[in-house]
């Protein structure tokens, strides 16, 4: 079956010197992107490189992808490489900082490719603080020619982490539902891609309706809902082996699944006789626990990162609102009190915030609030958008948006978008087909 972890790699830090004085403050709303120079990498002793490897032009592709990643984060402004005057090897070995200061770079990234004595490809990079004239980060990674994108993502994460003080999110994947066909007979397939849209692959054929895929913490398993044999149920899929199984033995529809933060349980809704309640199932013991028991609709559950609490939406008050309870189902408390309806709460990996969808006066909003319901902030408004999912660092949200359709569904489309927690840097994420229900993986190299 499909192997997503084709490439073996390992890494070690070659140097880590004094604390960086150049820092990006990402808690401020409207920030000034940090001017950064990403030098070309170079081949150390090109004679050792095979022709095929040379043809890959990794000394260009890796820094280009690092530039793209950093630019897309909205936190970095990449200075045009045409204005770099130092050769990649001098930049890497002993840069003249004045030259980089002249083009207003505050940081500079350099790197080289080495074929070592065991004929392995090693990629080294260094991050330089131009203002203070010193190296602030360095890393060497073993790569296979196929793994160069991941190498560039890991380096991007290192730079992001060093400059922001927060974890990166570039070495991650997105699972989503690829959509095609008319709106009343939509064909839906599970699809997986890198966070930047590369390496798109389909995991199902589209024979049955599939909805709401979500990763486990190691990003090797997915839980999702499928209408296989017209029985809507929660499934578990191992994306490395392709093995699939129904979760539990419920005499009715199960839906809205998510993993617990330790990956040991699946939490979901089970609908019976017109009433949806929240259940959890331990994947090892198969023990099922009913967590809510209320004649209202209780669904869209999401654990807090410490696993102690669950947020969900319920219409027990008469309208759809967001609630928090302990993970054993006790102490149910409503937390959304603004105008309108609130749904799809999802707990930030940092634990401080809950992202949600708000429906108000015919518009859909993605917003965040603290887990006690205070500090509500709406990040984006649209005709239809929902289902936010957090990047592993809790800084960026991904969600999907649908357009307003004309007669006979003309103009209907569905696409993935990301937005920074600050409400800035809203971006469409390119997918080969229409797309919905995105979920972000954790960092793959952690």
């Amino acid at each position, binding site marked *: 079956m499909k192997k997503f972890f084709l490439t073996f790699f390992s890494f070690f830090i070659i140097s880590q010197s004094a604390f960086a004085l150049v820092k990006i403050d990402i808690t401020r709303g409207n920030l000034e992107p940090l001017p950064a120079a990403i030098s070309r990498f170079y081949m150390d002793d090109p004679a050792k490189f095979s022709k095929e490897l040379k043809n890959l032009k990794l000394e260009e592709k890796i820094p280009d992808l690092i530039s793209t990643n950093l630019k897309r984060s909205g936190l970095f402004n990449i200075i045009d490489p045409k204005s770099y005057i130092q050769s990649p090897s001098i930049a890497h070995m002993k840069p003249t900082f004045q030259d980089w200061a002249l083009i207003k770079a505050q940081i500079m990234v350099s790197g080289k490719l080495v074929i070592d004595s065991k004929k392995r490809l090693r990629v080294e990079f260094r991050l330089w603080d131009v203002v203070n004239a010193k190296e602030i980060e360095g890393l060497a990674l073993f790569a296979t020619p196929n793994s160069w994108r991941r190498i560039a993502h890991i380096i991007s994460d290192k730079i992001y982490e060093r400059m922001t003080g927060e974890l990166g999110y570039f070495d991650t994947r997105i699972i989503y539902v690829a959509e095609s066909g*008319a*709106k*009343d*007979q*939509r064909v839906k397939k599970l699809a997986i891609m890198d966070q930047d849209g590369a390496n798109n692959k389909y995991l199902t054929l589209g024979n049955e*309706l599939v*909805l*709401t895929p979500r990763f486990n913490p190691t990003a090797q398993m997915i839980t999702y*809902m499928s209408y296989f044999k*017209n029985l*809507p149920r929660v499934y578990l899929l191992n994306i490395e082996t392709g093995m699939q199984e129904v979760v539990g033995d419920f005499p*009715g*529809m199960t*839906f*809205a699944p998510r993993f617990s933060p330790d990956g040991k349980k699946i939490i979901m*809704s089970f*609908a019976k*006789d*017109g*009433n*949806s309640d929240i259940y959890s199932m331990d994947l090892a013991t198969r023990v099922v626990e009913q967590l809510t028991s209320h004649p209202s*609709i209780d*669904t*869209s559950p999401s654990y807090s990162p410490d696993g102690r609490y669950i947020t969900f*939406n319920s*219409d027990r*008050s*008469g*309208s*759809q*609102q967001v609630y928090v309870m302990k993970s054993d189902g006790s102490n149910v408390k409503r937390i959304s*009190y*603004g*105008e*309108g*309806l609130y*749904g*799809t709460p999802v707990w930030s990996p940092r634990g401080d915030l809950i992202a949600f*969808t708000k*429906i108000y*006066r*015919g518009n859909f909003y993605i917003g965040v609030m603290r887990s006690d319901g205070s500090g509500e902030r709406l990040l984006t408004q649209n*005709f*239809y958008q*929902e*289902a936010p999912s957090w990047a592993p660092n809790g800084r960026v949200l991904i969600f999907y948006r*649908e357009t*307003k*359709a*004309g*007669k*006979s*569904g003309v103009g*209907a489309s569905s696409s993935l978008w990301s937005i920074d927690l600050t409400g800035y840097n809203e971006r469409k994420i390119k997918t080969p087909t229409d797309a919905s*229900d995105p979920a972000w993986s954790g960092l793959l190299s952690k």
Partner: protein
Amino acid sequence: MNYVKHQLSLIILREVKMLKGLRNSFLVIVLGILISACSTTATKKTVGAGDVYTGTDTVKYLATGVADRVFFATNSSKLTAAATATLDKQADYIKSSKISVVIEGHADERGTREYNLALGERRANAVRDYLMSKGIAKASIKVISYGKERPVNTESSALAWSQNRRSVTVKSK
């Protein structure tokens, strides 16, 4: 699509009213006035209680005079008088022809996906419960919710949404 054939023009008056004492809920009242371009005199039809669809476009028939679907108000699974009248006919037909049925529950596209799955299930069960109260055996009724996944009218309009908030009774194979 039937509604296209009839070239209906639609005037929607949408009024958002805050409910007294329920500061956090609001009621959307949608009045759809359908003017048929085909007839010489324009006929007015208001969509009934709340925003429940009362027309017959999109409706199919299990047998002569036995409509296959009933419609619901936004976020509601309450059966209207028109719905129970339809379901009375369905019950008679199911009994006399001894068939089994699947009740499909559907929602419009104006809710979150997961909530809509639950809402569709609630609607389908409201229909099932009513049919059972009319003497249909539980064993001959299955329910399935499609949430917002299978609209019958794919336009994004108040009329389409009212046609999509439905349950459909289908003969099972």
